[in-house]
C-alpha cells in the first residue's frame, strides 16, 4: 500500500458510485424487478401466539382463480435453520410460536389474488398457553416454547439452564465479590430498554426464478448473499451449486436483513409453480413477521474509590429473544462482552441470558446488544458520578482506556482515541459552560446536557477480494460485500484506487453475486470498511507487485527498482522518463508474457483471542471480536415542564475511526446513527397487547422526522490509525447510535434531576417522573 493517497481517493468525501442512479430514480430494488410470467407471493402468519397445527385444508384457496400454489409448513422438509441454534423452519411445521409466525405461502397471478387466497387457507390449531414476559417464562410450569430444545443443533458451545432459557453467556475477570470491600462508593440500578424496529424504508422482499437445469436465481434485499445461499440450501435441501443469490439495491438493513427474509419462501413457491415468484412484505407484515431489537432488563452495579477510580462492575442482563433464537446467542454474548465499557476496571463479572417468549423473534440490530449494555452501564456511571460529586465527563476521562490497555479477556488495544474523543467533545460542545452555567432555556422548558462513552468492534469472520487489471489499465473489484446504503461500495473502491494510485473512475465495483463474487460473511459488525477493506488493500497490493514484476521484464530491471506513480503508471525509481501506463503492462500480460494480472486475498479475522488464564468466558459464541472502536457522545436537551416532552436541541458525536476513507460517508453514518438513537431513546417501542403487536405501522410506530431531531448534529472525526486496518481505518456503521440513549438520559437528569431507568423517555414517562420528584 502506498503511503501517499492520490487525490480523489482515500480521505476524500467523493460522491457515492451509485448516487446518480439513486437521484434519477433508476436504482433497482427488488420490488422494481419484473420477470416474464412472474407470479406474486404472499405469506400467512399465525393468528395465535402459541399452538399446535392440527390440520390444514388448502382446497378453498387452490380453487380461487389465479392461485397457482399453496404451501404449508408440514409439506416442506423438516430442515431446521438458525444462525446459532437450529430452532426454526422456513414455515411453521408442528407448532406456531408467535402471532405472525409464517405458516403458509401462496403464489398467484397478482398480489391481490395471493392475499385473498391467504384468507381461504383453513388451518386448525390447538391453542396452547402462551408467555410474553421473560420473568414469567422462566418460572416453573410456564408454557414451554421449544420442547426439543436440547436436541437442536447449536454451532457454538452453548450454555443454558432454566425454563425457556436458550443461552447464557458469562464473562468474568478479576474477583468482583472481593472487590466491593475496596470500594468507597457503590451504585446499583436496573435499566430497561425497548424493542426497537429496524424500520428500513424498504420492506423485506425476494424474487426467485428457476432455469431449466434446476438452478435457482434469487434476487433480494439482503445483507449477505452468501448467508442467503446457505440458508436456502439448508432449508430446502438444494445443493449450493444450484443456488445463485444476487443483491439488488438495498433500502436499508441495520441488521434486520442479515438473516433470511422472504428468500426461502420465494424459492419454494418458484419451485412449486415452475415460474418466477416475487414475495414482498407489506409494512405491517414486515413489522410483525421479521425481527426487532431485543428488549433488555439489565442490573448494573459499579464500585469506585472516593477519587473516582473504578474498581468493580457487575452486570446481569435478561434479553427477550422472542420465539426463535435467530442471532440472540451472538447478541447476548456481545452484550456481556461490552459490559465493562471502554474503561479500566480490574474486576468485572457480566452475565446475560436470552429467554424465549411467544413474541416476534429479536435479532441483529445496529449495535448488536451494545445499545442495551451502553444504556445501562452509562446511566449507572452517571449515577456514580453524581454520588461522587464528580463531573461525569471527568469521571469518564479519569477511567478511559488508553493505548496499550487491554479489553476484557486480555486483548491489548494499541489504537484507542477515546481520550481525544472526550477532549474534543468537551471543547466543541463547550461542555463546562453548558454543564455548569447553561444558557437559559426557552420559557416553560428546562435545559440539560449529558454525556456517554461507547466502544464497539469492527471485524469478525471471513472475507475475500479479487482485483483484476483490465486490458486498458482500469480495474475490476469484486468482494461480494453488499452495500446496504452505508456507502461501502464507494469506500472499498477508494481503498482499491488509493492502493493502486488511480482515479476512482478507473475502478469498477462488481455487484455481489454468488456466481461471481468470492466469499464474504456479510455486511454487519461494522466490518466492511475494516475487514473487507483489508482484503481489498491486500489484493490490490498483490496486483501492484505483479504490475512491477511484468514491467520489470519490459524495463529489464529488478521489480524492486520500480514504483507505482500517480494516475496509473509504473516507472523506474529516480528516472522520471522511464514510465509505462498500466494499460501497456496489461496488454503485455494479457497477450505476451505472464497472463492476466489478478490479485486475490482470502482471510479470516485473525486478531488476538481471549486469554483463558486472564478471564473466564462461558457460552460466548466468539473466540475473538475485531478491532475495538471508541467514541463519546454529548447531547443538549430541553424538557417541556408542562408535557414532559424531551427535545434534543444539539448533539456532538466523536468517533475514533482510525482513518476516514470517505469523511462524507463517515459523517453520514454518525448523523444517521445519532438520529436512530434519538428515536430509540424518545419515541420508538414496539408494543404488544398479549401476543399481538399493536403498532405495526409508521402511523403508530414513530421514527423521527426532520422536525423531531436537531439539524445541529456535529460529527467529530478522530483518527488514531489501526495498524491492521486499510490505510489505518476501522468501522463506524454501528457506533453512532450506541451512546445516544444514555447521553439523553443523563441530560434529562441534569435538566430536571430525575434519573430514569426505562427507555424510551416518552413525555408521559418523563412527566410522571418529574411529578414524583417534585
Amino acid at each position, binding site marked *: 500500500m502506498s503511503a501517499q493517497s492520490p487525490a480523489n481517493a482515500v480521505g476524500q468525501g467523493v460522491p457515492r458510485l451509485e*448516487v446518480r442512479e439513486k437521484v434519477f*430514480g433508476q436504482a433497482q430494488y427488488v420490488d422494481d424487478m419484473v420477470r416474464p410470467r412472474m407470479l406474486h407471493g404472499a405469506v400467512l402468519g399465525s393468528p395465535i401466539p402459541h399452538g399446535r397445527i392440527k390440520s390444514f385444508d388448502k382446497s378453498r384457496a387452490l380453487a380461487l382463480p389465479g392461485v397457482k400454489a399453496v404451501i404449508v409448513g408440514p409439506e416442506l422438509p423438516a430442515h431446521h435453520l438458525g444462525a446459532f441454534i437450529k430452532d426454526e423452519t422456513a414455515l411453521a411445521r408442528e407448532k406456531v410460536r408467535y402471532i405472525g409466525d409464517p405458516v403458509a405461502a401462496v403464489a398467484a397471478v397478482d398480489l391481490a389474488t395471493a392475499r385473498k387466497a391467504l384468507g381461504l387457507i383453513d388451518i386448525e390449531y390447538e391453542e396452547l398457553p402462551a408467555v410474553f414476559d421473560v420473568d414469567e417464562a422462566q418460572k416453573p410450569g410456564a408454557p414451554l416454547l421449544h420442547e426439543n430444545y436440547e436436541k437442536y443443533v447449536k454451532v457454538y458451545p452453548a450454555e443454558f439452564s432454566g425454563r425457556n432459557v436458550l443461552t447464557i453467556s458469562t464473562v468474568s475477570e478479576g474477583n468482583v465479590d472481593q472487590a466491593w470491600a475496596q470500594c468507597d462508593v457503590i451504585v446499583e440500578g436496573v435499566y430497561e430498554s425497548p424493542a426497537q424496529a429496524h424500520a428500513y*424504508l424498504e420492506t423485506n422482499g425476494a424474487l426467485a426464478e428457476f432455469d431449466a437445469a434446476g438452478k435457482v436465481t434469487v434476487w433480494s434485499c439482503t445483507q449477505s448473499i452468501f448467508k442467503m445461499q446457505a440458508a436456502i440450501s439448508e432449508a430446502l435441501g438444494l445443493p449450493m451449486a444450484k443456488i445463485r443469490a444476487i443483491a439488488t439495491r438495498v433500502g436499508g438493513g441495520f441488521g434486520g436483513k442479515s438473516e433470511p427474509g422472504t428468500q426461502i419462501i420465494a424459492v419454494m413457491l418458484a419451485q412449486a409453480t415452475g415460474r418466477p415468484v416475487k414475495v414482498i412484505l407489506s409494512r405491517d407484515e414486515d413489522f410483525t413477521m421479521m425481527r426487532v431489537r431485543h428488549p433488555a432488563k439489565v442490573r448494573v452495579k459499579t464500585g469506585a474509590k472516593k477519587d473516582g477510580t473504578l474498581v468493580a462492575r457487575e452486570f446481569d442482563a435478561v434479553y427477550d429473544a422472542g420465539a426463535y433464537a435467530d442471532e440472540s446467542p451472538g447478541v447476548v454474548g456481545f452484550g456481556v462482552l461490552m459490559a465493562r465499557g471502554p474503561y479500566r476496571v480490574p474486576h468485572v463479572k457480566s452475565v446475560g441470558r436470552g429467554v424465549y417468549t411467544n413474541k416476534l423473534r429479536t435479532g441483529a440490530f445496529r449495535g448488536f446488544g451494545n445499545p442495551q449494555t451502553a444504556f445501562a452501564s452509562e446511566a449507572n456511571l452517571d449515577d456514580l458520578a453524581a454520588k461522587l460529586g464528580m463531573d461525569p465527563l471527568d469521571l469518564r476521562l479519569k477511567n478511559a482506556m488508553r493505548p496499550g490497555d487491554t479489553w476484557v479477556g486480555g486483548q491489548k488495544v494499541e489504537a484507542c482515541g477515546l481520550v481525544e474523543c472526550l477532549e474534543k467533545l468537551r471543547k466543541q460542545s463547550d461542555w463546562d459552560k453548558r454543564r455548569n452555567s447553561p444558557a437559559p432555556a426557552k420559557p416553560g422548558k428546562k435545559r440539560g446536557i449529558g454525556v456517554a462513552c461507547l466502544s464497539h468492534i469492527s471485524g469478525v469472520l471471513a472475507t475475500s477480494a479479487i482485483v483484476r487489471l483490465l486490458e486498458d489499465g482500469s480495474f475490476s473489484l469484486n468482494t461480494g460485500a453488499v452495500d446496504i*446504503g452505508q456507502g461501502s461500495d464507494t469506500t472499498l473502491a477508494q481503498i482499491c484506487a488509493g492502493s493502486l494510485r488511480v482515479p476512482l473512475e478507473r475502478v469498477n465495483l462488481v455487484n455481489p453475486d454468488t456466481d461471481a463474487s468470492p466469499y464474504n460473511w456479510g455486511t454487519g459488525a461494522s466490518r466492511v470498511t475494516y475487514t473487507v477493506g483489508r482484503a481489498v488493500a491486500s489484493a490490490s497490493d498483490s496486483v501492484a507487485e505483479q504490475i512491477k514484476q511484468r514491467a520489470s521484464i519490459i524495463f529489464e530491471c529488478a521489480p524492486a527498482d520500480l514504483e507505482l506513480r500517480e494516475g496509473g503508471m509504473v516507472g523506474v525509481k529516480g528516472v522520471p522518463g522511464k514510465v509505462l501506463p498500466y494499460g501497456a503492462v496489461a496488454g503485455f500480460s494479457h497477450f505476451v508474457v505472464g497472463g492476466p494480472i489478478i490479485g486475490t486475498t482470502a482471510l479470516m479475522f485473525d486478531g488476538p483471542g481471549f486469554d483463558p488464564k486472564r478471564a473466564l468466558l462461558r457460552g460466548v459464541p466468539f473466540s475473538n471480536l475485531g478491532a475495538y472502536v471508541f467514541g463519546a457522545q454529548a447531547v443538549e436537551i430541553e424538557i417541556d415542564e408542562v408535557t414532559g416532552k424531551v427535545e434534543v436541541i444539539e448533539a456532538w458525536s466523536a468517533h475514533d475511526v482510525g482513518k476516514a476513507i470517505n469523511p462524507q460517508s463517515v459523517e453520514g453514518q454518525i448523523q444517521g446513527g445519532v438520529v436512530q438513537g434519538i428515536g430509540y431513546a424518545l419515541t420508538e417501542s414496539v408494543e404488544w397487547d398479549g401476543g399481538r403487536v399493536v403498532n405495526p405501522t409508521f402511523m403508530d410506530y414513530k421514527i423521527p*422526522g426532520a422536525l423531531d431531531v436537531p439539524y445541529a*448534529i456535529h460529527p467529530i472525526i478522530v483518527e488514531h490509525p489501526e495498524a491492521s486496518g486499510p490505510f489505518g481505518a476501522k468501522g463506524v456503521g454501528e457506533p453512532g447510535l450506541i451512546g445516544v440513549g444514555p447521553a439523553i438520559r443523563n441530560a434529562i437528569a441534569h435538566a430536571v434531576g430525575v434519573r430514569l431507568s426505562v427507555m424510551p423517555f416518552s413525555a408521559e414517562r418523563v412527566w410522571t417522573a418529574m411529578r414524583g420528584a417534585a
Partner: protein
Amino acid sequence: MQVELNVNGEQASLMLDARQTLLDALRVQLGLTGTKLGCNQGVCGACTVLIDGKPARSCLVLAAGCGGRKIVTIEGIADGAKPSAVQQAFIETGAVQCGYCTPGMILTAEALLRKRKRPGLDEIREAMSGNLCRCSGYAKIIDAVKLASERVPA
C-alpha cells in the same frame, strides 16, 4: 376504466381498476419504478410525486382521478442526463444513503423551491418533515436543499 394520464409531459392511455392507486399505476402499468412504496398509508413520503406542481402521496391518490392533471415523477425531473439543481445538490452533499427515500425527498424539495426561492433552514426542515429517512439523520438532506436553493437564480 380508460383514463388519460399526463406523466412527465407524456400522455398515456391506461386501463385502470377504479380502486387502483396512482402509485400502482405508475409502477406497474407505466414501469416508472422510481416512485417507492414505503408504508402504503401516506406517512413515509417515499411515494411522493408532483400533481399539478404540488407534492402528493401517490399511495393515497386514486389513479382514475388524475385524468387531466399534470403528474411529475422522479424520472421527469432531470433534463436528459443533466440532473436538476436539487438532484445535483443531493449528489454533492452526501444526502443519499440507501436511496429509498431519495425520490420522494427530491420531489418534495423541488416543490418547495418552485414555491420559495430562498427558504430558511427551518422552512426547509418543515417542508421536508413529511418525508421519512432512516439512514441519513436528515442533516445532509437539509444541506442539499439549502445548496440547491442557493443555486436557483433569484
